């Protein structure tokens, strides 16, 4: 094996490593640098300010609001979507005719662009002419100010994201369910376990790796909320739907506070890592 031959695997890995290094890992280092320096002219950086940016950030009540709203959004939408997806997958995991059609239909929103979903949601939940309020009126419920109320805006966004992502998680759970060994369930039935008992004692524990995987996926995917916020609410009304990623975007592109945007990005990243660590601990014990 010549020296060139021995170097081949490194050569093949190089392009991938270069791209990931430049656009995934280097940015993290850059963000740290950016958050520790004052903004300069245009896109260049100014003097080192130490942790001053962070101090300003943590004194900004809007930051805490955005953090809180981000947590609300994540802690509700992720578990809720996964639970519904699991339920759906359980239903679809039966040898019945036509379930393939349902599977396809439930998955369809996943391939829609977020922009189209945003446009659609804006129309459906519109205060003027929106069909959802019409249905509510028919049921005797007074119209809900979905996207214009500070109390309703987050739930609406959660609803929209569940609508869009349900099919994806459902499919993954379905694949996992179909891979579960059948003899295990037969044995459980002979042992006297009813459907509920079988679900909690066998299905759920065996699905743990999948649940872990999906939690990670869902956590990363929750950043997608930016699209909805940017297109549907612009953080409003009155910053009630401002989430960290939108806040960072505003800082960077509306207020040109690059250092602040970097700081927020790093806080977000720290949040993600913490949550991942927690999920990993909770599900991999």
């Amino acid at each position, binding site marked *: 094996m010549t020296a060139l031959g021995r170097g081949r695997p490194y050569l093949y*890995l190089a392009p991938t490593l270069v791209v990931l290094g430049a656009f995934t*890992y280097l*940015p993290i280092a850059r963000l740290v640098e*950016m958050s520790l320096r004052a903004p300069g002219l245009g896109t260049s950086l100014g003097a080192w300010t130490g942790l001053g940016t962070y101090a300003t950030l943590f004194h900004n009540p809007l930051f805490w609001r955005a953090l809180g709203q981000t947590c609300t959004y994540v802690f509700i939408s992720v578990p809720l979507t996964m639970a519904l997806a699991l339920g759906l997958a359980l239903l679809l995991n039966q040898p019945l005719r036509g379930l393939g059609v349902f599977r396809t239909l*439930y*998955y369809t929103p996943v391939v829609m662009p977020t922009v189209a979903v945003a446009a659609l949601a804006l*129309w459906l939940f519109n205060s003027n002419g929106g069909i959802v309020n019409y249905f509510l009126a028919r049921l005797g419920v007074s119209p809900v100010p979905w996207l214009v109320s500070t109390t309703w805006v987050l739930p609406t966004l959660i609803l929209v994201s569940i609508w869009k992502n349900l099919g994806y998680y459902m499919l*993954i759970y379905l694949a*996992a369910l179909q891979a579960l060994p059948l003899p295990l369930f037969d044995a459980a039935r002979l042992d006297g376990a009813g459907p509920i008992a079988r679900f909690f004692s066998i299905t759920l524990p065996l699905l743990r790796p999948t649940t872990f995987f999906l939690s990670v996926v869902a956590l990363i995917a929750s950043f997608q909320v930016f699209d909805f916020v940017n297109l549907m609410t612009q953080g409003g009304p009155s910053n009630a739907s401002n989430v960290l990623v939108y806040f960072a975007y505003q800082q960077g592109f509306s207020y040109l506070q690059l250092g602040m945007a*970097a700081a927020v990005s790093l806080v977000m990243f720290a949040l993600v890592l913490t949550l991942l660590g927690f999920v990993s601990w909770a599900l991999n014990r």
Partner: protein
Amino acid sequence: MSRRVATYAILLLGLLPLAFPFYWMIVTSLKPKREVFTSTPEWLPAHPAWDNFATAWNAEPFARFFVNSVVVTVAIVGLQIVLGALAAFALARFEFRGRRAFFWVIMAALIVPVQVTFIANFITLAHLGWLNTYAGLIAPYAASAFGTFLLRQAFLAVPRQLEDAARLDGCSGLPFLWHILLPLSRPTLLAFALVAVVTHWNDYFWPLIVTSNNSVRTLPIGLGMFIGQEVTTDWNLLMAASLFVAAPMLLLFFFLQRYFVQSFLRGGIRG
């Protein structure tokens, strides 16, 4: 028996809130302006306005956006497959120092979302002069950790004896990747390509960051701009635009749904 009925009932019930928005989108897109806001909803357009689509299409340079989307998506997915195949080849079929480390370094990229790194990448692109260029839209996505992972799984599944036989047939290294590994990984390649195409065609966030010029804007951005203009006024045009922006992916999914679903059932998922 009752279990069967209950299952279908629940599934149909669940399908209503899922499917209704699509129906409403299609119906609205065909309504002339005056039928959009009526005291009682019209479930079908009385006078379908097919020219809504043309009107919406011409309201923005959607043709340009469409071309951009195609170029960018094809380039990204193509690069991801090439880079991913090479990296997966190295990781799956070679023994070398640091192999495990490199694998985990690549996998770690999966938990760094673009929404965290965007501001730094923006600066990087600005310094490179790649803002508002195809390069800026494509480069950060040229490598896919997910694609590398899937292809590595697929390559690992090819038996050693096959590689031995190929060596004795005079085929090793890159020819082996091309003649044997890739053809045998076709299902994985296809499944990954589909997911990647949908993901990047639908991408709104990164093009928003990188582009400020109609010459490189992609379809989702175009639609986003359209939302800004048409909200509270021409919902029918907006729905029409949403439909033709979503249509390519919907059609792709509709015709190739088998391969979408396969990508999950193929077990590339269980970690």
